[in-house]
């Protein structure tokens, strides 16, 4: 009995590592403060007016979605390398938040695109690639729901995650491959510092939220798995004592 409680104990031990609840609260507060700061300090853009403020959530969401996808890819590779279930759960947690942020990026991009480009949606490579990324995240999460055996689910989703990650560089490179209407990625050169500084602050604040979210989902996935293991063992022992 003491042996079978070990995974649960190990899982709950992780809780004492860092105060993730407080980090999450702090991250959300920092994000709100950064949004307020951005809206209040930066003047309206010469062409777009206050629409430019959408940038402060749109761009950080896109950056952080890429970070999440990077976590999925690395954790998937590590799973195939080492075969540890924890890496699989980390990848799944990052995919959940990543799909949320990608969806947010797309929605905000559409809201921004209508007044500036005159269209909700443009079939332009970077927009399109972001949508592809979103669909791959969703397919990844749906695959996980459709496969019951934990080992099979872990191995298959790792493989799907890695192949999906190979598509991501296309998102980055598409700006160089095709001359498009979409703005080339902003840099301090083309962006006044009044816009660039709030953008940076917002990105960091959102990243704290991202990490806290991943940590939370990861921890609860670990605990769920430990509970499942415990249940299996209890069932086994019961069967054994009966025999």
């Amino acid at each position, binding site marked *: 009995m003491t042996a079978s409680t070990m995974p649960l104990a190990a899982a709950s031990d992780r809780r004492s590592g860092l105060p993730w609840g407080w980090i999450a609260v702090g991250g959300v507060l920092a994000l709100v403060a950064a949004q307020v700061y951005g809206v209040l300090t*930066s*003047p*309206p*853009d*010469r*062409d*777009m*007016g206050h629409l*430019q403020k959408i*940038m402060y959530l749109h761009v950080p969401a896109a950056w952080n979605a890429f970070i999440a996808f990077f976590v999925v890819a690395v954790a998937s590779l590590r799973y195939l390398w080492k075969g540890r279930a924890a890496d699989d759960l980390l990848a799944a947690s990052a995919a959940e938040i990543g799909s949320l942020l990608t969806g947010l990026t797309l929605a905000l991009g559409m809201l921004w695109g209508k*007044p*500036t*480009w*005159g*269209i909700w949606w*443009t079939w332009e490579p970077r927009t399109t690639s972001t949508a592809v990324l979103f669909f791959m995240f969703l397919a990844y999460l749906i695959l996980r729901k459709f496969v019951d055996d934990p080992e099979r689910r872990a191995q298959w989703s790792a493989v799907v995650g890695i192949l999906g990650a*190979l598509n991501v*560089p*296309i998102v980055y*490179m598409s700006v*160089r*491959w*095709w*001359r*498009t*209407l979409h*703005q*080339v990625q*902003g840099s301090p050169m*083309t*962006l*006044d510092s*009044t*816009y660039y500084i709030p953008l940076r602050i917002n990105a960091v604040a959102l990243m704290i939220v991202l990490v806290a979210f991943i940590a939370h989902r990861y921890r609860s996935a670990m605990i769920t798995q430990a509970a499942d293991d415990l249940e299996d063992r209890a069932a086994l022992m019961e069967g054994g004592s009966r025999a």
Partner: protein
Amino acid sequence: MSNANGRKTATVVIASVIVVGAFTYLMLGNIEGDVVYFYTPTELLSKGDAAYDRAVRLGGQVSPGSVQWNAEALDLKFKVREGTKEVLVHSKGAPPQMFRDGMGVVVEGRYRRDGVFESKNLMIKHSEEYRAPKAGERPQEMYRSLMKGGTAS
């Protein structure tokens, strides 16, 4: 078993090398090569017969003073200019909010034989700069007035 694992590792290593090589080609191989994202009016006019009735994109500046906007019929006519050459563009539907004289635009459509470019899609080519307005500049006034009140001068 170790033999099978060794072969698996070898497959993964070889595949990784090939994948990295293909990505290097994509990044450094200049694959967009000689793609023309849009023709300027000069280029379009110099194509002569070959340019008529084919799906092309035309880009340039909205020639100042050329915009004729019929708000009732949602009918827009303007000239796209680059250098000294101009092409008359006809488009249906309301233009994007940022559409105004001197703005960079790209239109998708066909160059008809009567010398009018029939646009199916009108896009603003926004500059890559985000700048605060200069003193005295009212950012949104210009295209608002265009959207509301008939012809811009």
